[in-house]
């Protein structure tokens, strides 16, 4: 099963991964990370298909994808 992991304190909350996700499961958190941004996260992990589109568009290497 596909698994996507976010290093939340690296995230700047730009939202490019949110736009790239074909399953629309990447969302910005309401909470703040230690740098003061709303980090991206996946809440419905089971819907992830491991396409790595989010990681491809991430400018900050926040995302690791496993399949």
């Amino acid at each position, binding site marked *: 099963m596909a698994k996507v992991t976010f290093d939340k304190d690296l995230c700047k909350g730009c939202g490019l991964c949110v736009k790239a996700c074909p399953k629309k499961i990447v969302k910005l958190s309401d909470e703040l990370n230690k740098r003061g941004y709303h980090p991206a996260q996946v809440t419905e992990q089971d819907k992830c298909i491991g396409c790595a589109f989010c990681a491809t568009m991430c*400018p900050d290497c926040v995302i690791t994808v*496993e399949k």
Partner: protein
Amino acid sequence: MVVFEKPNALTENTLHYCPGCTHGIIHRLVAEALDELGVTGRTIGVASVGCSVFTYNYFNCDMVQAAHGRAPAVATGVKRSDANNIVFTYQGDGDLAAIGTAETVHSAARGENITVIFVNNAIYGMTGGQMAPTTLPGQKTQTSPYGRDVQTVGYPVKVCEMLSQVDGATYLERVAVNNVANVKKAKAAIKKAFQNQIEGKGFSLVEVLSTCPTNWGLAPEKALEWLEENMLPYYPLGVYKDKYAEEK
């Protein structure tokens, strides 16, 4: 099985770029190319002046910081001192296409066996969003508040088209990083530019159309749309020169 992770050629340092700036994507593509070609250990990068001035903090290879626009000249020296080095420059449009135009054209004309990564975001980023040589006609910047008027300040410089007329250049391609498909094409182009150098084929330049959300005054995802709607028509993507294409 890990299908996507941070490449080894990038350091653990956090990028200083603004949220949504596509410099980070281009850094990663260069790092992936170095890793996949297995040349990270003998690579020397040359950083430019501009937002990418701190590039030396982010790559796990030796780096040199060149004076404004002089990166291809410095790269020439580094490469000629030991041809076994893999040498690349990482330059923005304010560096490569303005103060560094002479160094760019002449390193291409000499056919130096180096790889140039040219990040074109149509504006001066670090200094606060002034008009660049690559700013589009009509584009508003800090120094063209009514839009770039080509009658007074002239037309944008199209670097790939210009260098395609230089006999010494080997490989010129323009790519963009506005969506997943284009990022994958950009990766292939950057990898080929390094492969050319490994094979001793000569001067390779990849122009990457990039965004500057902060100075364009747009949200990161809107900046990608602006790139697609405004920059792609003026700066068409594609291979502008490939000296060795016929051999395949």
